[in-house]
């Protein structure tokens, strides 16, 4: 679903580009609280991981292909603002090093598949966390649902953008039905992968999951004196 050069008209591309620039600007400021010495590599890995996940392509109805997006996954792992930076970097790398997605459509791709999936995924995740009991075992499922919802929403936005700046009059109703239908399926795949990945990471490195930090309890350390330790 990476939009190539010339797919949307110039005004639409410029507008989405502006949205992307402003949001990244805000994210840069906000992310300072999420990003430190130890989380910088994490952000890089999440970007690499999202990149890998996006290589899994599904054939989609009207000739385009769909793939996993990873926005919700990134948001739960590193926090929403850093996630926006991660996803933006992924699209830049895909565009500049792999020629996937046009350079004039970079803003569109970032807005469509980065900002939207991160925002929707994170809001759903947080919403669920607020209404459900605060238990660490629920985190993977909450993340999975956030991921599931984020995908069809992004697909709808794609249809919207196409209506505004697309080349020609395809029947929008049909396009919307086809896109959303298919993307619910992709969303299920995205949800399952997000669920499994967050579950696996929580099991051995709970400290790496940003979305779980508020509900991680502090452990008490045991101190052994040399005499009692010598017996061990």
């Amino acid at each position, binding site marked *: 679903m990476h939009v190539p050069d010339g797919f949307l008209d110039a005004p639409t591309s410029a507008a989405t580009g502006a949205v992307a620039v402003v949001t990244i600007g805000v994210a840069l400021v906000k992310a300072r609280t999420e990003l430190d010495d130890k989380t910088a590599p994490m952000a890089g890995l999440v970007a690499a991981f999202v990149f890998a996940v996006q290589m899994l392509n599904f054939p989609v109805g009207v000739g385009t292909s769909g793939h996993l997006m990873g926005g919700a996954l990134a948001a739960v792992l590193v926090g929403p603002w850093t996630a926006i930076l991660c996803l933006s970097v992924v699209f830049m790398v895909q565009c500049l090093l792999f020629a996937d997605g046009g350079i004039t459509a970079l803003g569109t791709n970032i807005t469509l598949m980065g900002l939207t999936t991160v925002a929707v995924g994170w809001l759903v995740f947080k919403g669920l966390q607020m209404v459900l009991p605060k238990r660490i075992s629920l985190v993977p499922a909450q993340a999975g649902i956030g991921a599931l919802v984020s995908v069809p929403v992004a697909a709808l936005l794609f249809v919207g953008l196409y209506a505004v700046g697309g080349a020609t009059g395809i029947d929008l109703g049909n396009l919307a039905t086809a896109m959303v239908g298919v993307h619910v399926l992709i969303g299920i795949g995205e949800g399952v992968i997000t669920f499994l990945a967050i579950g696996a990471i929580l099991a051995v490195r*709970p400290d790496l999951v940003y979305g779980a930090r508020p509900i991680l309890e502090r*452990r008490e*350390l045991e*101190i052994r*004196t*040399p005499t009692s*330790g*010598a017996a061990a």
Partner: protein
Amino acid sequence: MSTPVLDVRGLAYAYPDGHQALFGVDLHVHQGERVALLGPNGAGKTTLVLHLNGIHTAGAGSVSVSGLPVEKANLTEIRRRVGIVFQDPDDQLFMGTVRADVGFGPANLGIKGAELDRRVMRALEQVGMAEYVDRPPHHLSFGQRRRVAVATVLVMEPEILVLDEPSSNLDPASRRELADILRSLDVTVLMVTHDLPYALELCPRSVVLSGGTVVADGSTYDVLTDDALMTAHRLELPFGFDPRTATPRP
């Protein structure tokens, strides 16, 4: 007595997965000492070492280096003073060529040009790897990578050298050469090792860590000849070696 250059007090630490590895460790090392850190697999030696330049953050207790507490504000200074050779050389090497990798540290300190080159070549000569200067480090043999890893730390000329199993995977001559280098440098050395003859040869003092606490601290000779202590902590002298009869090398 002077303030210790390495001062660890009541240090406890649990890994993020909940596994506690250190249960209150005390260790004081003074300027110019060479200390061996012995103990069975899983004792917590590596975990302790990674606290000395702030890679792990103390869960309880405190660590300080030359009087500076190991905490965020001092990390840059502490990492300049403490050079750590990691147990796994693959954790240490990351640049595209041996030259870039060994030069990385001094370049960060602002050294460049001919001076940088001179220091890089000197460090590589010390470990006998000068001819490999333009090869990618991940295309070297394991022992060669270990030697380059040692060079990346020597080149920084740290005041305190912490080595985690530096002699493993080295051929016998390199092992002896490393001992010669360490003896010739005027620095404080803390060396983790399972090679007890090597510890006796190089370090007058030994600390034994077991189950996350210090169970012995004294002269290496005394530690190695204390049979009860040795068997209690999985330390055994290797085949054909007896500290009582081994004479120090000239």
